[in-house]
């Protein structure tokens, strides 16, 4: 069994190499110029060469050639924007299909994936003799350890048949929010009527030392919060101690992203809202009554 891992950031590099090692005698890391290669995680590290002024994803011709030559049983990939493009082009070139949103892997070619944003899990098995392509979500291999000697192999650039000219690249300015590492999150949804109402929610957040998040409906319909505040399958996956929702209905695509919270609390005037089925504690009162009273309460009883 031979598995290729393609990732950019340090954590997915380690996690995916570790997961691959559970199944495969040979684990090889494919590194983009941006990849943070970690010591001792793979047998080989294939470094994709990219000439100056080109987009990294243009290295797909070389990668497709490498896959046709090495014939890995599976490719485990981090779902970054660049790797989505790189691997999609590569798979099309070798005639392969890609399975995304993998959240469990019972075998090297067996994957459980989120269907309709987590409404259901769909299990796939890759046919023998083909290379299976999987985009694997974070924390899919919690107990695995990576190993290997990281023998470096350079993969020379091969020109694609069409040209994409890169004219400029710069850092992306992000919102000042870091939800994935937050211990406490207060998240708002459709129940918030106006942007100025976020002020009271922010006040509550500062009193209980929480970060502010939001659901997709409020993120998309209004321009009140940065993308980093979005909790859901199209935003951040969070694992706080406390996840307190205000006026969020609890759709599958949202709940799947906060299911790792130790405790979920909700405030929602609709007693039939799905969110109650996913909550440890829930208030059926109006958030416009509850939040001001919480602010008053935590001013009188400050947390140390």
């Amino acid at each position: 069994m031979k598995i290729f891992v393609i990732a950019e950031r340090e954590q997915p590099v380690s996690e995916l190499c570790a997961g691959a090692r559970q199944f495969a005698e040979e684990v090889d890391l494919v590194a983009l110029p941006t990849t943070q290669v970690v010591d001792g995680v793979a047998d080989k590290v294939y470094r994709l060469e990219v000439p100056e002024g080109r987009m990294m994803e243009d290295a797909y011709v070389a990668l497709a050639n490498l896959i046709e030559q090495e014939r890995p049983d599976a490719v485990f990939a981090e779902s970054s924007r660049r790797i989505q493009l790189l691997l999609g082009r590569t798979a099309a070139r070798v005639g392969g299909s890609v399975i995304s949103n993998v959240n469990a892997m019972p075998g090297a070619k067996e994957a459980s994936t989120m269907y309709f944003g987590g409404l259901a899990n769909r299990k796939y098995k890759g046919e023998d003799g083909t290379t299976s392509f999987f985009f694997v979500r974070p924390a899919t291999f919690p107990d695995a350890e990576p190993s290997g000697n990281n023998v470096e192999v350079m993969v020379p650039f091969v020109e694609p048949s069409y040209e994409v000219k890169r004219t400029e690249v710069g850092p992306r300015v992000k919102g000042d929010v870091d939800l994935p590492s937050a211990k406490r999150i207060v998240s708002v949804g459709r129940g918030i009527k106006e942007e100025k109402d976020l002020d009271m929610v922010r006040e509550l957040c500062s009193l209980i030392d929480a970060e502010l998040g939001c659901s997709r409906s409020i993120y998309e319909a209004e321009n009140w919060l940065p993308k980093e505040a979005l909790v859901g399958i199209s935003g951040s996956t969070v694992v706080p101690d406390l996840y307190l929702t205000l006026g969020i209905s609890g759709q599958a695509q949202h709940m799947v992203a906060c299911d790792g919270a130790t405790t979920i609390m909700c405030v929602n005037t609709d007693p039939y809202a799905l969110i109650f089925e996913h909550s440890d504690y829930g208030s059926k009162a109006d958030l416009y009554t509850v939040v001001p009273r919480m602010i008053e309460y935590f001013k009188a009883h400050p947390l140390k």
Partner: protein
Amino acid sequence: MNVLVCFKSVYDDVAIRTNSDKTLDYQAVPHIVSLYDLNAIEAAAQFVEADPEDRNLIALTVGDTKIHDTTMRKNVAARGASEVYLVMDDALEDAETHQTAQAVAAAVKKIGDIDLIICGDGSADVYAHQMGIQLGEILGIPNVNAVIDFKAEGNTIKVTRELDEEIEHIEVQTPAVLSVLSDMAQPRICQVKDIMTAGRKPVHELTLADIQCELPAAQYQILETKVPEPTPRKMVFFEATDEGIDQFIEQVHTYLTTEGA
């Protein structure tokens, strides 16, 4: 300039029920335009409407024969497409990314004379982020994802990509495929007159045979699709009374000063 926007027709997930064996029950569940594809249709429509003399918008979907829904196709036509193509064939049920891309590529060739293809970020059901990319590769034309803005200058398309850590500006020559982020454009609220005129726009129904597409073999088996067991929660609820609100707030306080501290 002919602009083609691709959309997927999916089950309306709020209407999907769960069977006692935890499988999904799709009976009488309507098909709708996949959520993020509405944003792609809007991005394409705004681009076309910026120069309506020169630009024309065509919409295309491929899927199994269950996607035959007049409300859905009218909805797409009301959003700015001048005509709608539906490729329907039961061989496309649960089609994999490469199979779908092959079918769309064959349809693009059949329609002919397309300068720019717009796709969404991912579909509501499998959210693979792959179709536009694989389509471009099969057609052998420039293709990029994560597009947050684009404009045309002659045959050059200037594109801005929003990546995880970077903003990247690139240029491609037409024909090209762009997969746009849902942040690029918010779907419009259709006006009554748009919906009225939508019913008169041409709709073309085709099969895989009509577009000379021989679907490649599937590379994965679907073993099962089941609703997961929910994470067990305490489910302690407080009524919307003064007393209930106080108890809830005290519960939050107790949690934060003990276990959640």
